């Protein structure tokens, strides 16, 4: 094995142990950012020792022992600063007595602690970007460099984002807290938002060939799965997981051999991942059991499920999709959702009904520079035989499109002869 191989092996082992390390340490230190620092120190120690000693038979216990020692140092130092001498001695004694529990903690159900960890990393006080970086670092065990590469940003930017976020948490006294029952759903939305942001960052990646971009999808899916096991009664958690599993099931079918994107209706459905579709449908089933079919993520998942379940594009249940979009539009007022609804209505009822919706969006400020508005409008006009108007709409859309591939596609459509 080369040094690089050994390093990768160590990182892999560490990543397996990290969630238990960080949760056990958080519990004893009552400080999540500090616990995360210590797991990093344990990793450094492993990198230093394992190349010569080999990976220990019980790597978790080894890492825990190191982190534990550093944690004790921290506690000592903190107490030196904060308390009187006689109290320190007593506390130290208690620490010693509490020691055996730390080992037991390795095998404990870490659900509650993990939930706390996720809620801390995704605190609404932090920006969405900071939450995403912190979550990838503390929950997924990605290094700063890996996060930077995944988001196509300089290492220093991510490092700074993480340091600032941790400082914000520590200074505001939010380093270790779990939302109360009543707050749970509200706080959960800030977690789900970040998970979905991470997923989309990987999923919509038009740029970046690096494997870390698809990796973002996997990490988001993984946090989603973790959330369903630690917050199993929250329907939106299952809804988001269903949405991500169902979207990810199309990964292999989304681009052709030269990397050009393939639209969903034109994809080879044999390439859709049936295992992932099954998992998505199971999660959606759980949403219904929990009476959450009307949730923001659940509705989007249900829409994608209509596609996933159609054996061919022609068999797509467009009336159901358009009904689901209507529900979604009633829940969240968004011109983008309205535009998507128009597409579904166009498929279910015909171009005329859809054009009414699209024309109602003409003055939406949010869509002023959104090329898909013109693209959808052009398509509807084309189907209605209003070719001159269709051409104008496609050309206007092409001028707004951000990348060359989309511009080409729209110009081709503008040049299409009457059907």
């Amino acid at each position, binding site marked *: 094995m080369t040094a690089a*191989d050994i390093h*990768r*092996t160590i*990182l*892999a*082992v560490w*990543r*397996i142990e990290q*969630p238990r390390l960080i949760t056990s340490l958080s519990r004893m230190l009552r400080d999540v950012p500090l616990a995360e620092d210590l797991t990093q120190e344990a990793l450094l120690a492993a990198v230093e020792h394992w190349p010569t000693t080999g990976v220990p*038979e*019980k790597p978790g216990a080894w890492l825990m022992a190191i982190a534990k020692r550093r944690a004790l140092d921290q506690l000592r130092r903190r107490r030196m600063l904060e308390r009187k001498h006689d109290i320190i001695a007593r506390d130290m004694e208690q620490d010693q007595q509490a020691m055996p529990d730390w080992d037991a903690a390795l095998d404990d159900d870490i*659900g509650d602690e993990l939930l706390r960890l996720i809620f801390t990393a995704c605190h609404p006080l932090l920006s969405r970007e900071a939450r995403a970086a912190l979550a990838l670092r503390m929950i997924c065990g990605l290094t700063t460099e890996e996060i930077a590469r995944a988001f196509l940003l300089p290492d220093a930017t991510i490092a700074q984002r993480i340091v600032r976020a941790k400082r914000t948490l520590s200074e505001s006294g939010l380093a270790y807290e779990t939302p109360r029952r009543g707050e749970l759903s509200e706080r959960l939305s800030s977690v789900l938002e970040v998970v979905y942001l991470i997923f989309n960052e990987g999923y919509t990646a038009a740029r970046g060939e690096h494997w870390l971009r*698809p*990796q973002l999808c*996997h990490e988001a*899916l*993984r*946090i*989603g*799965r*973790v959330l369903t*096991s*630690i917050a199993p009664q929250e329907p939106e958690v299952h809804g988001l997981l269903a949405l991500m599993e169902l979207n990810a099931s199309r*990964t*292999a079918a989304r681009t052709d051999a030269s990397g050009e994107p393939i639209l969903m209706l034109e994809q080879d459905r044999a390439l859709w991942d049936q*295992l*992932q579709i099954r*998992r998505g449908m199971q999660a959606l089933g759980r949403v219904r059991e929990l009476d959450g079919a009307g949730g923001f993520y659940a509705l989007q998942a249900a829409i994608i499920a209509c596609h996933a379940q159609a054996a061919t594009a022609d068999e797509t249940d467009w009336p159901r999709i358009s009904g689901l979009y209507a529900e979604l539009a009633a829940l969240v007022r968004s011109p983008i959702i309205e535009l998507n609804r128009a597409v579904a209505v166009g498929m279910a009822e015909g171009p005329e009904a859809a054009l009414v919706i699209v024309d109602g969006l003409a003055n939406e400020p949010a869509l002023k520079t959104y090329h898909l508005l013109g693209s959808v409008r052009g398509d509807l006009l084309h189907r209605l035989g209003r070719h001159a108007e269709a051409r104008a709409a496609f050309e206007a859309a092409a001028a707004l499109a951000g990348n060359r591939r989309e511009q080409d596609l729209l110009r081709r459509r503008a040049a299409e002869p009457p059907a």
Partner: protein
Amino acid sequence: MRFMYIVTPAHPVPPTTELMEAVHKLADREIKAGHMLDSGALMPRTLGAQVRITDGKLSVIDGPFVEAKEVIGGYAIFELRDKEEAVAKAVEFMQVHRDHMPGWEGTCEVRAFAGP
């Protein structure tokens, strides 16, 4: 990356209760951690068959169908970062066998899925 694990014991000896408990605990952890996507227990190889092609000849090697009713192997599908992580998981899994059923021998084959 997705990986398939196929566990095949060297001897048709059913696992002890202790081993089963330890394996279930590990599996539970991996499901909750979002790594394990699917899994299943397998009956002994003797209850299955192998269909082969060698030298252009197709042959079916059928199990002798002995009176074995115990599950003695299994498969699992995991979603992981890379091969190192997959191997580390397999090592951890096999270590559980060593800890909880001394004398157990067998193989855990790790196969990477083709795909994006």
